[in-house]
């Protein structure tokens, strides 16, 4: 009798004292990979959101799909390729390096180099043009 009561109490205990919350996904490692992958992927139906952030039905389907692909043992690259084969490069928030995107990736560096180079030459030319004045510089 006592034993039975104990069992019932034990069964009920989660309701009485509360249990430790369970993670939404079964395997935290898979969830972590899903998160890092889906942050680089675009939710196609949304205006401009990552798959990780979106709660659109298609985004949920795609997250489920990715979770299954991870479970199957596919690498991140294989999974990305899987999605690109279906939706095109548009799904990738990190555009692939291709001839069309070369300028996108080297552009910022070029801008910086061109700017610094331009500044260097301008300053040199400028100093050659200006007379050397010797008045005392003031503190700011």
């Amino acid at each position, binding site marked *: 009798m006592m034993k039975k009561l104990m069992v019932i109490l034990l069964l009920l205990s989660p309701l009485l004292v509360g249990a430790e919350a369970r993670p939404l996904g079964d395997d935290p490692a898979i969830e972590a990979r899903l998160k890092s992958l889906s942050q680089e992927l675009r939710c*196609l*139906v949304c205006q401009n959101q990552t798959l990780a952030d979106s709660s659109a*039905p*298609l985004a949920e*389907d*795609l997250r489920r*799909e990715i979770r299954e692909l991870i479970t199957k043992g596919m690498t991140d690259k294989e999974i990305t390729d899987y999605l*690109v*084969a*279906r*939706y*095109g490069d*548009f799904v990738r928030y990190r555009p692939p390096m291709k001839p069309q995107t070369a300028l996108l990736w080297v552009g910022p560096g070029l801008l910086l180099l061109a700017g610094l180079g331009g500044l260097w030459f301008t300053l040199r030319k400028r100093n050659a043009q200006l007379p050397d004045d010797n008045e005392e510089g003031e503190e700011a």
Partner: protein
Amino acid sequence: MKGSMKFLLPLAIFLILVGFFAAGLKLDPREVPSPLINKPAPAFRLPQLGAADKTFSPEDMRGQVWLLNVWASWCSACREEHPLLMEMSRQNAVPLIGLDYKDTDADANGVLTQAGNPYKLVATDADGRVGIDYGVYGVPETYVIDKAGVIRYKQIGPITEEALRDKIMPLVKGLQ
């Protein structure tokens, strides 16, 4: 570079930008072209709507030019193209297969009884997996598939009269 020419550089760059913006006004940034064009239509085998014992696979259509129209009862834009689909089925120009995307059979049947059924048959993709294989992101979408089972064209969004007249039907005629 001549001394005063370099001062024109900002203006020149700006004018190029304006050119791109003007071109951009005519484009729809939300329309994603399908990478599946000219690739074999992904295989699947799905139950048919209203005939649970029968299934459909793209293989069944081998040797024919056909349209795969992705739709759903919850999709309001699908109603826009529905009259055109009905018209097509009356003319019997090309076999029209429906793919009922993330829907329940009851709802789908409801719509078809009410508004008419333009489809030769409808395959049901209840969990949307085949949709993912076809790169469906906004319903309705329509694929033109040739005799060899290769996707030749994808209409994103409702079929319009212009799209039907200028793109889809000429393509279908050519393929047949």
